[in-house]
């Protein structure tokens, strides 16, 4: 087991290097750079631009250099000093800006993942054991709709009803006075009060998919001889169910946790933009449109790195819960 984990961790390194390259190159794709879009903004506002000042800035940020040189500079900065570059728009180091947002994104995605499973598994098990009953049909329809309704649309609908019917303002993760406050108990409580709406919205799609997966897998398992054997030996139905077939049916949850995480991060991006949460989504969108390249590149890199790590953890979990999985692969 230890050897397997070590091998997988080593394999992650080239993946991360590749991701960092792709992040950097895609960020460079738009024609022009931050300074051209900055100058354009100034021009539309009717302000005069000093060409020397722009040239000076370009020199300072190293924007005139070829891409690979900029990339090497960026990566060496990260590895040697933990320096993710300078955000040009915010005039602050990227490292300072992102951690809180990245943390919130991760917490939001992970909590939604677990909440989704927590709801999906019992419902899926019930649906499978009561196949073709009315609750089964109802749950099937609901889960189909859950898969079909995009999260951001759901967020808009929730926002509308919360505001008009309940008089709630659901935007943001914090009340106004806590946004820039340092973390303390009150801020945490305040966050939890805002947290549940985006969390529920985000977990809907995963829950719907989870119900269908659990139901389908469990139905396959229930026909197998070992289930019959367990019944024949006199186990109560409930005990038999939870002890054997359910465990096997839950495998895909572990094996796809990496992709679910990637999906959740994607979904969270959209929902955060709609609900203006203090997560990575809105800031990345802003950074992309203003071509604030180090900030945008770092976001893309770190979000991808998170899902790579998530996949690794899921593989380890899978090897742990299912001894049939061979470790050589």
């Amino acid at each position: 087991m230890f050897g397997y984990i070590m091998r997988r961790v080593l394999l992650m390194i080239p993946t991360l290097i590749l991701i960092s390259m792709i992040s950097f190159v895609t960020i460079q794709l738009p024609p022009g750079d931050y300074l051209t879009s900055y100058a354009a903004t100034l021009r539309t506002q009717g302000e005069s631009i000093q060409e020397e000042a722009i040239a000076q800035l370009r020199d300072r940020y190293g924007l005139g250099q070829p891409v690979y040189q900029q990339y090497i500079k960026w990566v060496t900065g990260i590895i040697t000093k933990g320096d993710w570059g300078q955000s040009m728009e915010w005039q602050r180091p990227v490292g300072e800006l992102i951690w809180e947002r990245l943390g919130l994104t991760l917490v939001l995605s992970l909590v939604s993942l677990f909440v989704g499973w927590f709801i999906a598994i019992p419902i899926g098990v019930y649906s499978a054991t009561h196949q073709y009953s009315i609750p089964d049909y109802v749950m099937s329809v609901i889960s189909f709709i859950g898969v079909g309704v995009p999260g951001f649309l759901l967020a808009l609908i929730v926002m509308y009803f919360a505001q008009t019917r309940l008089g709630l303002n659901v935007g943001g993760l914090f009340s106004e006075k806590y946004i820039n406050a340092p973390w303390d108990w009150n801020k945490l409580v305040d966050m939890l009060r805002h947290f549940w709406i985006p969390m529920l919205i985000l977990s809907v799609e995963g829950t719907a998919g989870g119900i269908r997966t659990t139901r389908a897998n469990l139905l396959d398992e229930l026909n197998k001889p070992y289930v019959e054997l367990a019944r024949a030996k006199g186990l109560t139905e409930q005990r038999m169910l939870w002890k054997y077939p359910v465990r096997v049916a839950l495998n895909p949850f572990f094996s796809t946790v990496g992709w679910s995480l990637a999906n959740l991060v994607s979904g969270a991006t959209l929902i955060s933009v709609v609900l203006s949460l203090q997560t990575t989504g809105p800031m990345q969108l802003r950074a992309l449109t203003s071509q604030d390249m180090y900030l945008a590149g770092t976001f893309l890199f770190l979000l991808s790195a998170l899902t790579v790590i998530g996949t690794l953890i899921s593989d380890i979990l899978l090897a742990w819960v299912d001894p049939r999985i061979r470790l050589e692969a």
Partner: protein
Amino acid sequence: MADVDRTRPANEVPAAEEEIESGGEQVYVAPPWKLMWWRFRKHKMALISSVVLILFYFVAVFTEFVAPYDPDQNMLQFKQVPPTAMHIRDVEGQFHFAFVYQHVRTMDPQTFQITVKEDMSARYPIQFFVHGFTYKLLGLWQTDVHLFGIPSAKDQQGVFLFGTDRLGRDVFSRICYGARLSLSLGLVSVFLSLALGVVLGGISGYRGGAVDTLIQRVIEFIRTIPTIPLWMTLSAALPADWPVVRVYFGISVILSLVGWTWMARVVRGRFLSMREEDFVLAARLNGSGEMRIILRHMLPSFLSYIIANLTLSIPNMILSETALSFLGLGLRPPAISWGVLLQEAMNVRSLMLSPWVLTPGFAVVIAVLAFNFMGDGLRDAADPYAR
């Protein structure tokens, strides 16, 4: 097979079984497409969904005919009008074909909330094939006939099925126009990813070995990058001054850059399982070349399967386009797609005063669900010989 579909149990017997069994002699002589149709017919939701999709694509093709108003026309006297109520019974209790009453608008000076009252004295019947703005049907015939409307002077009363937006544009007409871009973009992207997926997945599955390993690694790698942030980054790279058509193809390419991995896995799985089949061996022993085996023997036998999977991946493309355009990174106004229309809902004021700007979202949901159900039915029907 590599890509086991985990959302369906293997023992859920497709319903067509009994009919095929009870069909007697007929079954043994029926060509494959007939067996497929029998099985597909049994899946009621899939059948209904197909009808819905045919309707949607009809609207997408004959947009100008179905839409009662010019989607870009700002009818300033009809700003943020709620959906027009249709009646079939008038104040005297008499029944008519659907009609609308004259609306009287009042605006609350404080909240700008518009309230509409119906003036029961003036009645406008809904008529079919009325004259409206002129257009070229299919780009060929100039005409001004529209599917429905009311025969009134334009500035008196309109029929707005889903209300109007901030600028007084008819939301229903805009949804019709949006269907054109949104529904076709899904198809275009799916075919692009099909092309990539079949070629790469085919090579991967047929050749195996080092090529297979390499392609599988690439697929795994692409799948670990969260798609929305990646798509956001890529579409931010599309220059803002590009014409609509070019952005449209740019977006489809971007969507298929990620979409092909899924297709490739499906194709590879099929190739792997089919490579060992007897008929492939027979073809090889008969001296068929590699290309002939693939194109002539293998491809036809999993074509239906591919089509079913294609149908299932269209909704993702539609959802992604909507999401990107919604964020302002995909298609941009003046282009009209469902995502672009939903941008209107991003404006909180607009959403609160006129919640009907969300209706394009429901068009998306219906299209997505319909594709899902139809794909489900097609998948059941795809292999009519399976028991």
